């Protein structure tokens, strides 16, 4: 088979791998190094002046992201202080009931959606590439887009409280309270946070692909840093946890905007469906927050113990195990809703079972410290505080997992205490430990030891003064979310202690925040590896360079800086892979999933305005409907699509100037990949997994109504037209077949036939969409939840059909304009993959609309 007939996507690496010791020992001449450094610096230069904000590099976006999340956290913390002031004495009238309800709703929502989850993503974007010796994340513009979405959505949501227009039905937004709530508060919550959830999923996709495909050559799954394992697990959890909430938001907003009665019991709806969807998200969410923080501890503990982590496999087991088990806990937030005892028992059991992997994690850390020579550093002090607080929260968690006990303490201050112990111990303290530990990595300066100890002791004692008494406050009968309380319950003094404590915590955070922002110009730069860590991030260069790593190393150990003594010198000299940027392009190496064998050079994207514009228009599409203004929303959505298409067209899967590139050490790698070899394909695959989960949640909704409601569908209800549904489904199936066929035809060189298929397919998609719309047109979605559910499924498949049509058109245009050729067909692979999912979605929708209700 001759070389020129091999599709570019199937080109394989050529040359020597792994590198031999002689090759690695060969010095790189000084003048070559100087040239390489110059070209690299040019390719990775951060834009200057006001163009700085067009940067997409992980080292910039990551810092903005963390600082924004931290700012939101401080705002939500101020809200907590206001609430504590109101609770200082019984029957206080400092803050009105209405404002208090807005405050606790925003405090919870902001801490969860604007701080905890984004903080994980922000920190990961910032440091994951360094752990992996990668130059950047695989999709830098996606990170930037996610960040701008987060900023716009976050400011919108949190800003609403300044206008007293904030949501006020609790962060869990239970209907009917939240559906009947007047004003735009609930809409702000639903649309604003959906917008941010989309950004979260985008970041999760990127992080998963980063951990799977952007590891340095040789970093097999058994030697990758534990942080990367946690990123994989948490990314996977986000993919399965957020979509049910998005599906719930979708139904909820349809009820708020168009009066489709999903949660209205008078028309067959059921508020319990929201509770299920919310907590299927809400409980894994807790572990989504907790696991990355444990991951930070897993990076700090070995450094402190001066030895490799003990029980690497155990920790991987506990991360993966926790990820799974955390999906079997959601009903423990619903123990008092009157479900059958046996059902509660299952969730009680899983809630106890999840303690086991969590315990293993903690014991593995303690065991590492026992087996190591411990040097107590400031980050370790915070980890010690985390352990003390988290074990207390975990143990009260074991208590509330016992359903009968939860019947007592559910929705009391006991739970407030419990959840703050788990979140401070499981998230806040480890994250601050991480800030102290990694600050020298991303700012090349140390934070103050003295201020750090002050902050620690203030926050630690203040925290316990605030929250330890709350256990008793709850047992004495104080429910959550009360803006005040009567005298005589014996809780006055407890509330006063808590309020005092909360201000001590606030003082600690003030010290911590000052330590971060205080000018450090006069402070010396740090030594290169100030803590003596063994993982790759400490190979960073001082003074700072923007290219990530000078050359991408070959890794054979879990702690390469400890075990591979010549590694850093060789990296610095550009001895390893990709030491140069001959074409002036930003590049990183893509490797295989299990063994990290190099398979491709990935050209990553550089600074751009288009991401900011795309985020702005996406924001408009979400924010205008809050005020029930739909025309500008649709215009914004259209512009957002145009921006994203422009961005994809101009910077992804472009045919390269040459097929193979010499990456150093005698290895040549392809510069283009399509299908499963390509990172883009993986991103589509992972995104669609999340999308399918959201769709599955809607289907679950249909069956949920069927079980919970004795009349679903109501007797004598009108059904969708079976024939029309069948035809619509067939049209989608055919469109899928044409897309799949076009991929084969194109690759075989039959470009005209492929174009014909790609031209015909959108027409079929459109007629399929029309068919689905037509089939439910006679049903009145406001009359009962059954027709409303059928309409919701229709809306879902039609919305996806629009995307599918655009994708087919995109490939057709690509083929006509030379972006998509038989050799360079990554776009068509990705679109076909999308269509596999869409075809399946249409098939299931057809069955759910046309067939299943007739059998129920």
């Amino acid at each position, binding site marked *: *088979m001759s070389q020129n007939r*091999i599709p570019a996507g*199937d080109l*394989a*690496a*050529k*040359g*020597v*791998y*792994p590198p031999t010791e002689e090759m690695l020992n060969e010095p790189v001449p000084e003048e070559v190094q100087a040239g390489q450094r110059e070209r690299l610096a040019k390719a990775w230069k951060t834009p200057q002046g006001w163009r700085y904000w067009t940067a997409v590099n992980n080292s910039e976006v990551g810092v903005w992201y963390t600082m924004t999340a931290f700012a939101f956290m401080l705002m939500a913390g101020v809200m907590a202080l206001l609430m504590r002031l109101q609770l200082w004495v019984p029957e206080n009238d400092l803050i009105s009931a209405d404002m208090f309800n807005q405050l606790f709703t925003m405090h919870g929502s902001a801490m969860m959606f604007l701080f905890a989850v984004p903080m994980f993503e922000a920190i990961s974007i910032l440091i994951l590439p360094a752990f992996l010796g990668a130059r950047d994340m695989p999709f830098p513009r996606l990170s930037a887009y996610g960040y701008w979405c987060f900023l716009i959505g976050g400011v919108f949501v949190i800003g609403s409280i300044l206008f007293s227009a904030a949501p006020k039905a609790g962060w869990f937004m239970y209907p009917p309270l939240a559906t009947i709530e007047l004003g735009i508060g609930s809409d702000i919550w639903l649309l604003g946070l959906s917008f941010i959830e989309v950004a979260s999923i985008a970041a999760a996709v990127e992080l998963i692909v980063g951990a799977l495909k952007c590891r340095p050559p*040789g*970093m*097999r*799954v*058994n*030697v990758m840093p534990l942080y990367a394992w946690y990123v994989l697990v948490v990314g996977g959890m986000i993919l399965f946890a957020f979509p049910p909430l998005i599906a719930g938001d979708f139904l909820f907003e349809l009820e708020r905007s168009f009066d489709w009665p999903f949660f209205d019991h008078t028309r067959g709806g059921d508020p319990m469906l929201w509770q299920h969807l919310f907590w299927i998200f809400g409980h894994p969410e807790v572990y989504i927050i907790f696991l990355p923080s444990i991951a930070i501890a897993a990076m700090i503990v070995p450094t402190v113990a001066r030895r*490799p982590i003990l029980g*690497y*496999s*155990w920790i*991987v*087991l*506990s991360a*993966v*195990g926790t990820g*799974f*088990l955390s*999906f*079997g806990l959601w009903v423990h937030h619903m123990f008092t809703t009157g*479900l*059958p*005892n*046996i*059902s*509660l*028992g*299952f*969730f*009680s*059991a*899983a809630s*106890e*079972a999840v303690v*086991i*992997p969590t315990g293993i994690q903690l014991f593995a850390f303690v065991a590492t410290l026992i087996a190591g020579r411990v040097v107590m550093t400031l980050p370790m002090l915070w980890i010690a505080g985390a352990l003390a607080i988290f074990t207390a929260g975990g143990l009260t968690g074991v208590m509330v997992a016992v359903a009968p006990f939860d019947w007592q303490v559910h929705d009391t201050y006991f739970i407030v205490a419990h959840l703050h112990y788990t979140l401070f111990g499981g998230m806040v303290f480890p994250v601050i430990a991480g800030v102290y530990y990694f600050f020298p990595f991303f700012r090349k300066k140390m934070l103050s030891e003295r201020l750090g100890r002050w902050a620690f002791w203030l926050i630690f004692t203040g925290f316990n003064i605030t929250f330890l008494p709350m256990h008793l406050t709850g047992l004495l009968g104080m429910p959550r979310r009360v803006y005040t309380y009567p005298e005589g319950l014996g809780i006055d003094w407890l509330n006063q202690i808590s309020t005092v404590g909360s201000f001590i915590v606030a003082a600690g955070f003030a010290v911590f925040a000052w330590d971060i922002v205080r000018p450090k110009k006069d402070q010396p730069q740090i030594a290169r590896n100030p803590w003596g860590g063994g993982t790759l991030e400490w190979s960073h260069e001082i003074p700072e360079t923007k290219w990530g790593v000078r050359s991408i190393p070959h*890794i*054979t*150990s*879990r702690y390469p800086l400890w075990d591979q003594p010549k590694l850093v010198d060789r990296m610095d000299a550009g001895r390893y892979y990709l030491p140069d940027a001959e074409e002036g392009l930003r590049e990183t190496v893509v490797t*295989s*999933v*299990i*063994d990290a*064998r*190099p398979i491709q050079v990935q050209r990553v994207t550089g600074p751009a305005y288009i991401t900011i514009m795309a985020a702005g228009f996406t924001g408009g599409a979400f924010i205008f409907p809050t005020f029930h203004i739909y025309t500008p929303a649709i215009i914004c959505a259209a512009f957002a699509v145009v921006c994203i298409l422009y961005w994809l067209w101009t910077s992804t899967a472009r045919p390269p100037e040459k097929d193979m590139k010499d990456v150093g050490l005698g*290895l040549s790698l392809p510069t283009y990949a399509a299908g499963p070899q390509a990172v883009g394909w993986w991103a589509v695959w992972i995104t669609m997994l999340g999308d399918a989960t959201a769709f599955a949640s809607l289907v679950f909704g249909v069956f949920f109504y069927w*079980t*919970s409601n004795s009349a679903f569908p109501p007797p004598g209800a009108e059904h969708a037209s079976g024939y029309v549904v069948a035809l619509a489904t067939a049209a989608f199936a055919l469109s899928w077949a044409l897309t799949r066929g076009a991929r084969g035809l194109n690759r075989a060189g039959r470009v005209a036939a492929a174009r014909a298929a790609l031209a015909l397919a959108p027409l079929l998609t459109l007629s399929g969409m029309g068919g689905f719309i037509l089939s439910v047109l006679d049903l009145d979605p406001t009359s009962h939840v059954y027709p409303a559910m059928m309409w919701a499924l229709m809306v879902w498949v039609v919305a996806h059909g629009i995307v599918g049509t655009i994708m087919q058109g995109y490939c057709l245009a690509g083929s006509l304009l030379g972006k998509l050729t038989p050799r360079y067909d990554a776009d068509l692979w990705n679109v076909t993959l999308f269509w596999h999912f869409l075809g399946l979605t249409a098939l299931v929708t057809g069955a759910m609309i046309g067939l299943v209700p007739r059998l129920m």
Partner: protein
Amino acid sequence: MDRDDHDRQPHPREDEHEFGEERESLWRIAFAPTIWAFHFAISYAAVSVYCFKFERMVDMGTLRLGLIAMTVVMLAAIAWIGWRAFRRWDVYDTGEFTNPEGSAEDRHQFLGHAGFLLAVVSFIGVVYDTLPLVILGTCR
């Protein structure tokens, strides 16, 4: 695609034939917890549907027996997966607990070890989730 032309490929080391990457899958370590997930979902769904829809038609005892039988099958499956993974870990022959090397063999054994431990935890999880079926016998 024809890939037998080794000149175009990086040279794999000898041991990589036995422990070749293409023989591995990250999914494998997730098999046991996936069984736990199915066991959990089926138990929960069956009891919910039964209690809301069919409580008056069928006896709860039949359902419990059916679910406990399913539990036994699933526990056996997890045990088998655990045994397979234990063999891959190969700790008796190698005496190696930690598998810290960047070699294909260590990676192979590591995945066995992680799979084995996950099977243990999944086994415990399934046993826990069966306790309500054994102890509680009504829809109340």
